[in-house]
């Protein structure tokens, strides 16, 4: 077993004067819960297809480290390559700590960023015993998270410029970092966030992120999460969200890197008329393992959800999808659509899909669909008959498959970056000319 004693590291990390009583007790609760559950094992139904052994045995050190100037410097180089230009509202986290390189003004037009120290009701109802029990990794995150960043947007404010959150995993030794973000969107307000996970670290590292979101009445949040690690990195995360009356959440997930990636999404459509959509695309090639687990709860009347994931599985890659939709007894008029489509392009790839519906009322419209297969031979033939060579044709069809999802990303820079990254993995893309 591990030579790193999590409890000792935890005790040491709490041994600091500036930790408030509220966060001390929350983190204690989380640690107690994690000690009870431990790392989830494959015996657990939700972890049947994903084995955390490489993370457990990876000995990733979660102890807090201050950012040094070298890391700051390196980070600024990384940011140069980032999706959005320097004019964007930007927050940079290096190994979970807020970097001074951030270019964001701390107060802007009703949007405020702070370190959450005291209890904050609408966020704190999202976490606690139940969450920690259902998601042991979120408990671990809470116990070790050094800085819970609180992003709040006041009532009736629309911010069109996307807020860019950059998480950089850097450092020389194998580190576990636990970024934690809490977002509270005021009534009738609008915000777009691009959450970007990158790493220039050639060493294996583990990022275990938690994002908690509360959306008040009529608010709109678009959140695009973009993950492009080198293939040695591990990534696990939970996004939990609660939506009020007629609030809307649009989520986009793009997973291109990482060795083992597990994304959990838990959305509660808690009040009438709330709506959410999740669009995801991932590449699992060269032994990558990408797992998306979503849980959408329809708890109130006339709530709608739309979910669609597309996976491209290449050599020794493995894609996992579990999408669960629960329609509770009071959720009359709920509408839930879910689809998971997968391209299996390699002899040694594997795809495991579990779309689930749990429905407790009758006035609903729910459907889900799953497909697994290789490229459509007729389409391939069509392209070849038009004089396109087979390799290029395959590349084009594969790209088109992913592009269906990419088209739904409403931030052009993110869409373009995702498109060129996916195309970059496909053969012959340099011959596509101005297609992208």
């Amino acid at each position, binding site marked *: 077993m591990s030579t790193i004693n999590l409890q000792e590291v935890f005790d040491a990390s709490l041994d600091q004067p500036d930790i408030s009583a509220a966060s001390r007790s929350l983190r204690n609760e989380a640690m107690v819960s994690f000690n009870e559950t431990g790392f989830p094992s494959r015996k657990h139904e939700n972890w049947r297809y994903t084995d955390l052994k490489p993370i457990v045995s990876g000995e990733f050190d979660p102890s807090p480290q201050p950012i040094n100037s070298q890391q700051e410097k390196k980070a600024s180089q990384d940011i140069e390559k980032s999706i959005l230009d320097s004019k964007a509202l930007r927050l940079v986290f290096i190994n979970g700590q807020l970097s001074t390189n951030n270019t964001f003004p701390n107060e802007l037009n009703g949007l405020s960023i702070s370190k959450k120290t005291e209890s904050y009701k609408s966020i704190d109802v999202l976490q606690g015993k139940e969450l920690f029990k259902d998601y042991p990794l979120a408990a671990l995150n809470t116990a070790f998270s050094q800085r819970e960043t609180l992003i709040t947007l006041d009532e009736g404010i629309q911010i069109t410029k996307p807020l860019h959150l950059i998480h950089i995993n850097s450092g020389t030794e194998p580190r576990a970092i636990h970024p934690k973000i809490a977002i509270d969107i005021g009534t009738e307000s609008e915000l777009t966030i691009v959450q970007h996970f990158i790493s220039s670290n050639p060493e294996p590292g583990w990022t275990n992120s938690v994002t908690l979101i509360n959306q008040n009445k009529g608010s709109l949040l678009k959140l695009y999460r973009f993950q492009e690690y080198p293939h040695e990195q591990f990534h696990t995360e939970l996004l939990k969200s609660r939506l009020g009356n007629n609030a809307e959440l649009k989520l986009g997930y793009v997973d291109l890197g990482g060795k083992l990636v597990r994304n959990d999404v838990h959305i509660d459509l808690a009040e009438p008329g709330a709506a959410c959509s999740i669009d995801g695309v991932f590449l699992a090639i060269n032994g990558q393992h990408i797992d998306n687990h979503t849980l959408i709860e329809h708890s109130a009347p006339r709530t709608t959800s739309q979910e669609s994931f597309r996976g491209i599985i290449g050599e020794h890659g493995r894609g996992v999808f579990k999408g669960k939709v629960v329609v509770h007894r009071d959720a009359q008029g709920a509408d839930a659509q879910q689809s998971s489509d997968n391209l299996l392009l390699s002899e040694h790839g594997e*795809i495991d899909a579990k*779309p*689930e519906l749990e429905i407790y009322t*009758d006035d609903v*419209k729910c459907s*889900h669909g799953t497909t697994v*297969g290789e490229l459509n031979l007729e389409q391939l033939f069509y392209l070849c008959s038009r004089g396109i060579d087979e390799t290029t044709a395959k590349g084009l069809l594969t790209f088109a498959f992913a592009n269906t999802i990419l088209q739904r990303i409403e931030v052009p820079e993110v869409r373009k970056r995702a498109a060129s990254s996916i195309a970059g993995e496909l053969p012959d893309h340099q011959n596509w000319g101005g297609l992208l």
Partner: protein
Amino acid sequence: MRTEDKEFSDLVKQKYQHGFVTDIEQELVPPGLDEDVVRLISKKKGEPLFLTNWRLKAYRHWLTMDEPTWAHVKYTPIDYQSISYFAAPKNLDDAPKSLDEVDPALLETYDKLGIPLHERARLAGVAVDAVFDSVSVATTFKEKLGEAGVVFCSFSEAVKTHPELIEKYLGSVVPQRDNFFAALNSAVFSDGSFVYIPKGVRCPMELSTYFRINAANTGQFERTLIIADEGSHVSYLEGCTAPMRDENQLHAAVVELVALEDAEIKYSTVQNWYPGDENGVGGIYNFVTKRGDCRGANSKISWTQVETGSAITWKYPSCILRGENSIGEFYSVALANNYQQADTGTKMVHIGANTRSTIISKGISAGNAENSYRGLVRIMPTAHGARNYTQCDSLLIGDQCGAHTFPAVESRNRNAQIEHEATTSKISDDQLFYCRQRGLSEEDTVNMIVNGFCRDVFKKLPMEFAVEAQALLNVSLEGAVG
């Protein structure tokens, strides 16, 4: 409450019509289970040593197992020590050779159920191996089947006449250790049906067994084994109904099908056991393991089921598609009303190249019932060109019921093509309104729509079964309108 709601709730409250008990002296083993009981059952049935040991092995393994809890059903825990594991009609020694010799009380039971055994057998050309509680007492058309070389008899008879086949195939599809209920069944199975179709034979008639649970407190542990040798064909029908009892009765059957090269087995079930009363009291616990093994190339196994009864159904008829080009099919209608709970579905395991499977599942929930589809399609790396199509639809009637879908797809071959679709909805007001304004009663409308909903499955049933199934659905469901 709207008037039509009331009308329909009255209809829903309709009592189970087949509830009665036949008085026949039962030879009972005292309740409880230990190795001695297993030995006693084996001894009473005069089984060879290998089978006694096989049972004991299963029993010992069962002791180490835990009852599964993953299914989406709730029930009070079963006390396995309060069940009597063996019941046989007493007059076994002078067992009847023909229907005329059958105990009149038994025949009366069938009559009450609307199954005139001899008539049905003669008119429909069906051979009936009627299992009354645990021991077969009447087998018909034996001679005709004998001419074709088909073996169709009770399991205990087969143990005596064809021990080599039993030893070779028993447990080869559902091993003793397969799951909790299969292990229990393997230890204490009482009787069941055995079918062997020799090479190249097309069974001249449809084979049918009517099961009936009679004695209170006797769990029934059927064991069915069907072997279709190379190039043979058989269609097997299974139908069930049970008398009304307030105590839950456990039924843990195991069905094993083996299809060798070019063979085809069609297995149809209409299950209408006592579902409990409208408050969810009583009813049968139906925990069944059914699995078919397409062992040879080009073989085919087709499961068709209509599940309307039982308080709890836990049943996943599955196919192991081992042979090249083999085909697995699963067609199911599962209806749950009042407080019934059904967790049913299938597993298709594709091992051979070019194997194909089709899954059509129709779930209907009414009242306070919970109905779940649970399925798995697994494509192994060897299954080049495998193909699966799955469709599972759920219909909800009333706002207190639940319909759930838990399908899993695991593909490890790039040439495989898998499609899965599921929908859940209620009968729309538009549909209801359309039929109502054309003068149909609400009840007829619902029946019509539900029958249409299930048509894809019904048309896979043998004709006489399809008629019975449709009538059964109408009775079970009448009036539950949301």
